[in-house]
């Protein structure tokens, strides 16, 4: 294994981690402030991707599409919050799981109704096409670097939002004491809608970014959703910092596992067997990591103090 390959894989892990963070940040924020477990977060990711692909196809501009993905996902989030989610805050997790499971069915089949069964096309904008040289003599796709940068930017913006703004103060207040914040005269219903829409927008943004890299199709949100849940559970539900570190951990572990495990097994069994066993183990790896972490720290790595 060369330095160049290791560096490339590390970047791949980072990039996956950053994407997961965009999903996980919204999930964990919504849980932290409203105490809601939202399985339909993956559907908002899908909404973002479809909005971006559709608008990009109409206008020919990825950037307009990206803007549309933020707007549509936030709007979809706000509507869902107003119609359904706000009735769930004082319910137990079981009801929340069920209702948002139902939302997945509605979103998926509804999207198929509107867009048909075939995947949509969404290309990387010309500005970010191609690859750039890396130290070690290899190349790396510019778009993936852009994703890493965008993710870092969002993380920083979230940090500023929460630590420096009025909205952030209210969010923090909501996290530590839900009754208190109402007493402070904050319109809690509006705050919840705003937080939910913010989380939705982050998911939609992630969906659009990834849509250009993968295929825009119904059901694309579900694998990401489960990974995002793994991330926030590892990080400690409700903690943005936990979500960031959890996302990077999952991204790097998953990428490195897929890359290194088959190589490891080559030492013991023939190559085609090693590929299969290594591949099988790699696909289970993050779940194993999660189980190990929870066995030792049942509330994740960075459990919020109040919960």
């Amino acid at each position, binding site marked *: 294994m060369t330095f160049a390959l290791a560096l490339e894989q590390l970047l791949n892990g980072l990039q996956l981690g950053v994407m997961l963070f965009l999903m996980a940040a919204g999930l964990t924020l919504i*849980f932290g402030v409203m105490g809601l477990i939202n399985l339909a977060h993956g559907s908002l990711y899908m909404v973002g991707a479809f909005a971006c692909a559709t608008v990009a196809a109409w206008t020919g501009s990825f950037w307009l599409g990206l803007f549309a993905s933020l707007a549509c996902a936030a709007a979809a989030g706000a509507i869902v919050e107003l119609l359904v989610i706000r009735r769930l805050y004082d319910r137990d997790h079981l009801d929340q*799981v069920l209702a948002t499971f139902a939302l997945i069915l509605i979103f998926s*089949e509804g999207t198929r109704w509107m867009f048909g069964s075939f995947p949509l096309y969404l290309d990387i904008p010309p500005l970010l096409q191609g690859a750039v040289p890396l130290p070690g003599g290899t190349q790396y796709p510019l778009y993936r670097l852009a994703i890493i940068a965008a993710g870092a930017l969002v993380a920083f913006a979230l940090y500023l939002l929460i630590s420096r703004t009025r909205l952030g103060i209210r969010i923090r207040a909501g996290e530590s004491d839900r009754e208190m914040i109402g007493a402070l005269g904050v319109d809690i219903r509006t705050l919840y809608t705003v937080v939910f829409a913010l989380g939705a927008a982050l998911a939609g943004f992630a969906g659009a970014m990834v849509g250009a890299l993968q295929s825009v199709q119904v059901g694309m949100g579900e694998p990401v959703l489960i990974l995002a849940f793994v991330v926030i559970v590892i990080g400690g539900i409700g903690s943005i910092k936990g979500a960031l570190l959890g996302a990077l951990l999952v991204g790097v572990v998953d990428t490195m596992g897929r890359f290194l495990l088959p190589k490891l097994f080559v030492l013991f069994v023939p190559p085609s067997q090693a590929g299969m066993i290594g591949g*099988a183990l790699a696909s289970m790896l993050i779940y*194993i990591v999660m189980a190990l972490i929870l066995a030792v720290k049942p509330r994740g790595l960075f459990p919020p103090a109040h919960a």
Partner: protein
Amino acid sequence: MSRETVVNFILAALLLAVPLLANAVGQPFYITLATRIAILALAATGLNLALGLGGLVSFGHAAFFGIGGYAAGILATHGFSGEPLVFGLSGTNQMLVIWIVAAVTAGLAGLAIGAISLRTSGVYFIMITLAFAQMVYYFAVSWPAYGGEDGLSILVRNQFPGVSTMRPLSFFLICYVVLLAAIGLFALIRASRFGSALQAARQNPVRVATVGIRPFRIRLTAFAISAMMTALAGALFADLNRFVSPSMLSWHMSGELIVLIILGGTGRLFGPLAGAALYVIIEYALGGITERWQFFLGLILLGVVLFARGGLLGFIAGKARHG
């Protein structure tokens, strides 16, 4: 007799009457549909023990359902081919043996998964059970020996002493009796000392510890029993379809099992049966009308969660009573 008892009795009688009638008029498909209802109700009754009585929202019971299915599939395959399984033991096509193997395997898996998962609570518990089920799922998908993603066909349905299992009605009756036995067991456990402790641990875990009952052990035991019952359903499901695949292990399956319970009414004796019947009928009826049936299923589920919290039985039989 309370109203709920009457409703329960009617449900049980209907589930028996429909296949008998279908058999009489030569519509065997409705027997298959009723068998499916019975098996799903059995799986959900298993989950109901953990979820309804114990308050343990397991989002990973598909793991046990699938383990039961694979136990049946693998044993039957070896029974058919004559190749020894492990340690020189051979496969079998006897349902009774398969059931025991399925239940014991799932019970052990339940103990292992429960021992780690029950250290957590709330959302963490939901998610860690999901993670364990995903682990089993990916293992099944990528393990080549038993078909991987393609699954495993059981060419001939397994045998039950003195019964021709290939006859739809006979197989239905087996499932029906097993379901009633499981519901009976559920009722016994609910009323027993163990059931008292389990339900109290759901209602007030901290307080239960202060009287000297350790919730962890109670819950772990309940989780394992629950896993065994669900695995039994998995084994029957494999025999119904004469086929096992990783889709039995997918997180959608876990979600569906929870859906069945909520649809019927959480923690109720016949909730899983009511839920399974409703679910299968919705799936069949809507599926016949539109390809978009999942959309409408979603709307119905949402409606039940938001506006009809007691589920079907809550709607018909009123508020749940506790002893």
